[in-house]
């Protein structure tokens, strides 16, 4: 058994340890005897998107944004859209999450057009939403409690066509206003969660992997793993934030 994972823009969207999500998915698959074939797709590289089961996009620096958008609008945006509509699984973090939306409005009023796969947009602000945070995934996204670190100045607002990934328990989430965090549309999961997101949230990690496996191998069920170290790291942050 094999799952094909595509890591989009690992060359520029590689900030805040988000690559740890790839390491985590790969290991959790391998520990169950499933091969994980990770294809790195940097700026300028092309690949057949139909062969991938799971896509990952992380966060990056503003400095490289221009280079990235030019590459995105030279055709990758259409391929990503097609993969989304084809129910492929996407995990998109921070900058990568914003990029899946319609546009980004800077606080000087300039608009940056993004992929438009998700009905959401982001508005820049002067205040940085930063710190450890925690949210509860909605039932339709598995219901796990997720702990992580958020660090964004953009406020994301969801449209009607997408659901929030979850509800903020501690921290800011999408915009610090409406109590939502992240977005869910078809099999796309977007969040502001660094940490990285998956390693110390094994329940959510397996939920994502299960979605991708179910699509490729209908009826396949992930076997449980010994997650005692992961759970210890997870519980420590849950307890610490509950005391705040």
């Amino acid at each position, binding site marked *: 058994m094999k799952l094909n994972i595509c890591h989009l823009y690992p*060359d*520029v969207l*590689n*900030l*805040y*340890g*988000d*690559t*740890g999500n790839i*390491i*985590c998915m790969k*290991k959790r698959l391998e520990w169950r005897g499933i091969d994980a074939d990770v294809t790195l797709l940097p*700026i300028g590289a092309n690949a057949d998107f139909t062969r991938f089961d799971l896509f990952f996009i992380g966060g990056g*620096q*503003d*400095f*490289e944004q*221009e*280079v990235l958008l030019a590459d995105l609008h030279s055709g990758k945006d259409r391929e990503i859209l097609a993969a989304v509509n084809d129910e492929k699984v996407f995990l998109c973090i921070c900058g990568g999450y914003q990029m899946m939306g319609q546009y980004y409005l800077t606080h000087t009023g300039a608009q940056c057009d993004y992929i438009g796969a998700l009905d959401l947009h982001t508005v820049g602000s002067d205040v940085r939403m*930063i*710190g*450890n945070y925690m949210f509860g995934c909605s039932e339709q996204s598995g219901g796990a409690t997720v702990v992580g*670190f958020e*660090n964004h100045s953009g406020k994301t607002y969801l449209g009607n066509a997408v659901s929030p990934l979850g509800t903020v328990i501690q921290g800011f989430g999408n915009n610090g206003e409406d109590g939502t965090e992240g977005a869910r549309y078809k099999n796309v999961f977007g969040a502001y969660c*660094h*940490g*990285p997101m998956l*390693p*110390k949230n094994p329940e959510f990690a397996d939920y994502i992997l299960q979605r991708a496996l179910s699509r490729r191998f209908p009826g396949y069920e992930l076997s449980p793993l010994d997650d005692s*170290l*992961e759970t*210890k*790291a*997870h519980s*420590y*942050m849950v307890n610490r934030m509950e005391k705040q």
Partner: protein
Amino acid sequence: MKIKVILAVTACKLTIKLLRLIGRGGTAIPGKIAIRICPDLLSYLAKDVNCIVVTGTNGKTTSSRIIEEIYVRNGASYFANRSGANLINGITAIFIENSTLTGRPKKQNAVIECDEAASKEVCRLIDPAVVLVTNVFRDQLDRYGEVSWTLQNILIGIKNSPNAVVCLNADCSLTASIASQIPNKVIFYGVDVPIYKDPVSEVSDAPYCIKCKHEYEYSYRTFGHLGGFYCPDCGYKRPEPQISVTDILKSSVSSTKVRVRVFGEDDVITINLPGGYNIYNAVGALAVSEAVGFARNVTKDAIAGFSCGFGRMEQFDMGSHSARIILVKNPAGCNQVLNYLSGLSEKTIFVCCLNDNSADGKDVSWIWDVNFEKLEDMDELIPEIYVSGIRSGDMAVRLKYAGINEAKLKVFDDYDALIRAMTKQSLPVIIMPTYTAMMDLRAKMSSAFGGKEFWE
């Protein structure tokens, strides 16, 4: 003005005394009080002091210690902010400690390690004679944001130093880009050759040209984004350094011997610390010494004989075996420790202590940008890994996913238990803590095995 100076200096000196009486060595609060009384105090105190400012992401402390040793061996009168108090408050306090009550300097020279963000203000006030920029790496993103922001702060600091000779790391594309934006005299230093046979693979913190955003090409790399960079689009490239390492002659666990070329003259120097990053620290200090005009043979002796301490390869004797502490602050520094470990010939216990206080960086995500997978290849060399610190849970998970067998991992919830375990076994120990973990652990180890208080 004069009254205010005297008031501020007196208040600061008294507060420092009081704090030490109760066993604390802080300088931030005394400095803050002084600035509150007299906002321009630092420029007044620094007026007749010849100042060297050392800034950049990694290597500030070690570089400053080497420069200090150069001053010592030249018999020059100087002071330095040796406790790592490198923000405006701490720097002000150190100038006060080294001035009379009326604000006259007691010493002629100062070696000042300065935080990158604080450098713009500090440089404006002290008008340095030499500024050394070690490098720019990603660091504590929760505090500093992007590397371009850090670079911008350093640039402003140098623009506020019109009289300084500026020593820049030629191998760092970010640092070297400062040269074309300033009128100052610049001395470039660098390493002309690769340092490690098999360096850890790591993400570059600066893959795209700072001037035109095209991807760089490299004729060689030392580590991280450092090396012979070249932009095929706009032609921006590593400048030819006046001071460079042309060959790595011998590296051991405790020192490195290199061939250098200094303004066209070949020489050999021994650096009294191991690790590739300390080669950069040594040639950076050499550049400063040339800028000041010290005799080269004295500088060579200083580089061969300095000791750093304070968590930078600091050694503790635990009886039958020893422990070394190597402070880490970011992925680049951490990857260098792994490079160092991989070169060891003796079985070693590796200890990771991860904290998330604001001086460590509140976001611990960065440990996933470190190539801990390299430890898998050191299975024989490192029989056990101890994990401790506030975020030991995250550290243990990181190591598990790096492929380390869980049976090799030992997690300690407090430092006393950790120290007991390190003492009980007999292998040499390498401890890699973040800043506040280092401070706590070091204090405990100093009282257990002997050592200095951090303000001494």
